[in-house]
């Protein structure tokens, strides 16, 4: 009876299963197929199977792009961790209206399109942007300094976009911690800092880890922020994929770049799972 009911229940997966098969799995299979065609600008998408599109990635040009992508993702994750902790702690320690207001402030940026937020950063950091005109008017600088189209600006905008995810992820764990644990540490004579360092922080690490994984993966795959804030100067894997598809018409190379990025994402996810299993 139970078996039959569960077979029936799993039928409920059919509509979603059909969507994922047609729109996720089949496309990834076709990416794989395309990546095995001979590459080249305007490549005709036919010919014998070859690994040339993967061999092309050995060029130092692409190596530098992968390194930059990973560096941006790592820095974004680091800053999100550093800033996400105080935010999560502050929400978990407050009650009533202040807590609700903080939660609202925390999630509200998620409701604004990534393009609109990137546009906001352009207005702030551009040559005639608010930051430059403020610095000019108080005489710190004589001519606008270039803030936009730099790796730093891309990281800044990514941190802003992904900080809520990190904070929410840590908060989910902090809210579940028994307050008695901290009280016990305090009762035994630990200072506030010692309590945080030896009790709260170690117990909340799983939340920080899952937040870090999420932030790392999403920043590695983000397109709008590097495209708008980094421009043509700061090329990352995803913007390079776009260029290969729309400007160079080298679809096999775009496909091999895509699959290499997906493989990297899977490796990162696997590493995070290892860490988690080791009890971090």
């Amino acid at each position, binding site marked *: 009876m*139970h078996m039959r009911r*569960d*077979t029936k*229940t799993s039928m*409920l*997966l059919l*509509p*979603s*299963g059909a969507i*994922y098969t047609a*729109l*996720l799995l089949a*496309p990834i299979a*076709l*990416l794989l197929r395309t990546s095995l065609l001979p590459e080249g600008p305007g490549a005709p998408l036919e010919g014998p199977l070859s690994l040339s599109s993967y061999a092309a990635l050995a060029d130092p040009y692409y190596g530098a792009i992968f390194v930059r992508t990973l560096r941006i993702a790592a820095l974004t994750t680091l800053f999100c961790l550093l*800033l996400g902790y*105080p*935010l999560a*702690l*502050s929400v978990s320690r*407050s009650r009533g209206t202040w807590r609700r207001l903080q*939660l*609202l402030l*925390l*999630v509200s*940026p998620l*409701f*604004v*399109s990534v*393009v*609109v*937020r*990137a*546009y*906001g950063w352009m207005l*702030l950091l551009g040559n005639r942007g*608010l930051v430059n*005109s*403020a610095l000019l008017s108080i005489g710190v600088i004589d001519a606008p300094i270039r803030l936009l189209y730099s790796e730093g600006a891309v990281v800044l*905008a990514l941190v802003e976009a992904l*900080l809520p995810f990190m904070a*929410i992820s840590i908060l989910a764990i902090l809210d579940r911690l028994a307050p008695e644990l901290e009280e016990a540490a305090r009762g035994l004579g630990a200072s506030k800092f010692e309590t945080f360092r030896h009790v709260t922080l170690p117990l909340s690490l799983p939340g920080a880890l899952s937040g870090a994984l999420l932030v790392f*993966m*999403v920043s590695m*795959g*983000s*397109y*709008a922020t590097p*495209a*708008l804030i980094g421009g043509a100067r700061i090329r990352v894997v*995803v913007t390079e*994929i*776009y260029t290969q*598809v*729309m400007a160079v018409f080298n679809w096999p190379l775009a*496909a091999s770049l*895509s699959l290499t*990025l*997906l493989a990297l*994402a899977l490796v990162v996810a696997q590493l995070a799972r290892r860490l988690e299993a080791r009890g971090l």
Partner: protein
Amino acid sequence: MMRALVAPLYGFLLAAPLIVVYYSFSPGVVLEFPPKEFTLTWYENLFERQRLVQAIGVSVFVATFATAVALIAGVPAAYALTRGRFVGRHALAALFLSPLVLPGLVLALGLLMAMSTLAPGLVGTVWPLLGAHGLITLPWVIRAVSASLETADPHLEDAARGLGATPLAAFFLVTLPAIRPGVTAAAAFAFIVSFGNFALSMFFTSGTVTTLPVAIFEYIDQFQDPTVAAASTLVIVGTAVLVGLTAPPRKMELP
């Protein structure tokens, strides 16, 4: 002390959207602070920009369609994934949630290649946009509805079954009312995610079929005036209204 520490962080989170709203009322093309005066000129200009107005319409249509698809397919899937006990459930759940973290542009490229190989007739129509947005909203719905189902008491449904309700009746009369706030929040979220998504639309816009984020992107590339700031402000206000109506902050559950 904590408040003094986190206040600048909240300022940082709100800086970019707020500056866009501020710029939309700016009389000149150059951003000035403090303001000399405010104007609604750019809002008037917005409605003369056919491409932006059309894009708003396309985005509303695509987001509505994607939300409907995500609800119809996602609610049953969330139910099966949380209540069912079958082999491969965890692997399936991981697969179903994967579009949340996979690079949107890569998913879009896969769709583009699949479409140009298997169904070239669809290139240039609104269909690939609908498919791409359905794919990205579905995992949001599955996640939000699963979270609500996990907190809802399964015994109530069993009780209804015991009293003779069919599985369908038990679901619609007992379970669905219990998880309704979660489903409403999921629908609002799906709509907002689709409306704001950029990467998945990039390859599928052409001529008259352009979503608002792509139209904004193109506009920023070509012109330097606050018209798109006005469009963005309208979207922010619309989103705030939608969130306020469907998930009052008092009861708001985090996704």
